[in-house]
C-alpha cells in the first residue's frame, strides 16, 4: 500500500502519533461531519387572548442535497435558554409553551415549525424566538466510514 499523507491533530495532552481516534480532534482518515449549510432567524409571535392562543410559524430551508441530510436545529426562547429541537414546551403562556419541530418535506427541503400548541393558555404578549440550524453534508442514514 502506497504511503498516504494524513492530517491529524490530537487533543491537548495526547501524542498525535499514538492517540486513539477518540482523542484526536481532527483525523483525515475518518469522515468528519461537515456542515453543508447553516443559518439563523427570528420568529415573531403575535399577542393572543386567553382561549385563542394557538399559533404556528414555519420556515422552509431548501438545501438541494437530493437526499435526507443529518441536521441540528436549536431554538432560543425569550428566557435566553437554547435547546435542541424538537422541543416541547408545556408552560401556561405562549413564551413558555412555544415548541419546535421539523418536517422533512422532501429530499431537498427541511421545514422548521415553531408553534404554541395549547388552545387553552392564558393570554400572552407578543414575543420572539430565535433559531439556528446546521444541515450536514452527511446523510442521516448510511454515512460512509473508513
Amino acid at each position, binding site marked *: 500500500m502506497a504511503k498516504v499523507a*494524513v*492530517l491529524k491533530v490530537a*487533543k*491537548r495532552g495526547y501524542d498525535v502519533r499514538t492517540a486513539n*481516534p*477518540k482523542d484526536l*480532534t*481532527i*483525523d*483525515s*482518515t*475518518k*469522515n*468528519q*461531519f*461537515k*456542515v*453543508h449549510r*447553516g443559518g*439563523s432567524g427570528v420568529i415573531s409571535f403575535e399577542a393572543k387572548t386567553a382561549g385563542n392562543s394557538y399559533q404556528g410559524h414555519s420556515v422552509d430551508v431548501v438545501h438541494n442535497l437530493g437526499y435526507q441530510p*443529518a*441536521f*441540528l436545529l*436549536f431554538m*432560543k426562547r425569550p*428566557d*435566553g*435558554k*437554547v*435547546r*435542541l*429541537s*424538537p*422541543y*416541547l*414546551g*408545556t408552560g401556561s403562556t405562549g413564551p413558555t409553551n412555544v*415548541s419546535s*419541530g*421539523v*418536517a*422533512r*418535506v*422532501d429530499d431537498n427541503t427541511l421545514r422548521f*415549525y415553531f*408553534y404554541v*400548541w395549547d*388552545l387553552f393558555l392564558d393570554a400572552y404578549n407578543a414575543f420572539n424566538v*430565535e433559531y*439556528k440550524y*446546521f444541515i450536514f*453534508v452527511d*446523510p*442521516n*442514514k*448510511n*454515512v*460512509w*466510514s*473508513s
Partner: protein
Amino acid sequence: MSGVPNIKVARSGYDTRTASNQNLALGTEFTILKIARIKRATADGSVPHGLSYTPMSLFLRELSSSPKQIGYALTSPLLDSNNSVDSSNINFEKVATGDSAVIAVLFADPFGSEDVFRPNFDGRPVLKTGDNRFDSRYDSLKVFSSGTLTLNVPEWTSSAGVVTNTVSTSVSHNLNYVPLFAPFIPAQTSLTAYYQWYWQWHNRSTWATSTEYLFDDYVEYPNSSGTFYVSLQHHTSSSSTEPGVGASWGNYWILSETLTGFPGAPGNIPDRDIDLNSLEDVKIVYGGVSAFVDETVYIYATTTQLVIKYVRTDTQAFGYSTFPARTVNLGYTIFYNRVDEEFNLLE
C-alpha cells in the same frame, strides 16, 4: 469559494479534486462543529460553561451507570428533561427519574454571531480558518460506522401475571467506551403517545385542491363521509390527485383502512415499518394518551453496542391485549467521540 486556500481530504478511493462533498473526509471550506466540553451531572443545577456567549449543546441521559447506557434527552419539561444552555451556564434541569446522570456535549460554536472562543494551546500548532468554520483545537464528529439496525418485534399477547414484554437488538461497536451516535433522537419514546400526537398534527380535515400536503397528512373525503386518506408523498393537490377520483390519486393517497387503526383510533401505531429516524421531527398537538397499552422504544449506546429495546406494557384493564408484530428500523451513525468521559478544551 475562489481565491481562498482550502484543505480537502477525500475518503479512500476518491480523488479529492473531483469527489463530491459527501465523499470528503475533511474540508476547511466547511463548518465543522466544535465540541469543546463534555460535562456530566448527577443532579439538577447550573454549571458555568466558560464561554462569554451562548453556545449550543446536546444533552444525553445516562439511563444506567452500571452497565453504562446512554441516549439522547428529548428536551421537554413534560417528558424527560428540560436541559438548556444560556449565556453563562449549562443548565441541568430535571434529571429524569431513575437516570443516573445527564451529560452535556457543549459546542464552542455560538448561537449568535460572536467569534468562537480561542483557547490558548500553549503555542502548539493550530489549523484554523479565520471565519470560525474550522479550528483543530476543538473536537469534531468523526464517523466510526454507519448502517441500518432492524428489530423484528413478534406478535405478543399478555397473560396472567405477564404484563410486560421486551424485545431488543443491537449492533456491536466494541469501542470499549460509550460513543456519541446519530440520529439525535430521544433515548425513550412512547410510540403509543407519539403517534397519537402525530396524527393530530397531520389531521388536515377535508381535502381541497391547490393545497400542499406532506407525507402522512390525512384527510376525510368526502367531508364527513368517514372515509380517510393518508398522503403518501409531499405534493400540491389538483384534480388529478383528488382522493379516490383523480387520474393519479393512488400515487398520492392511500385509503386509511389499509393502515390498521388509523386514524379512527388516535394513538394507534401504523401497520407498516417504523422508521425511528422520523422521531427527529416530533411535533405535538394537545391530546390525551391511551393509558391502557403502551409500546415504548429505547435507543441507547453501551460500551460495546448500540441498542434498540422495544417494551410493550399492558395494564390488562380490559383483559389481555394482543400487540401486533412490527418491524422497526434505525439508520444509525456511530462516532468515535467518547461521551462517558468528561473533558474541557476551553481551559
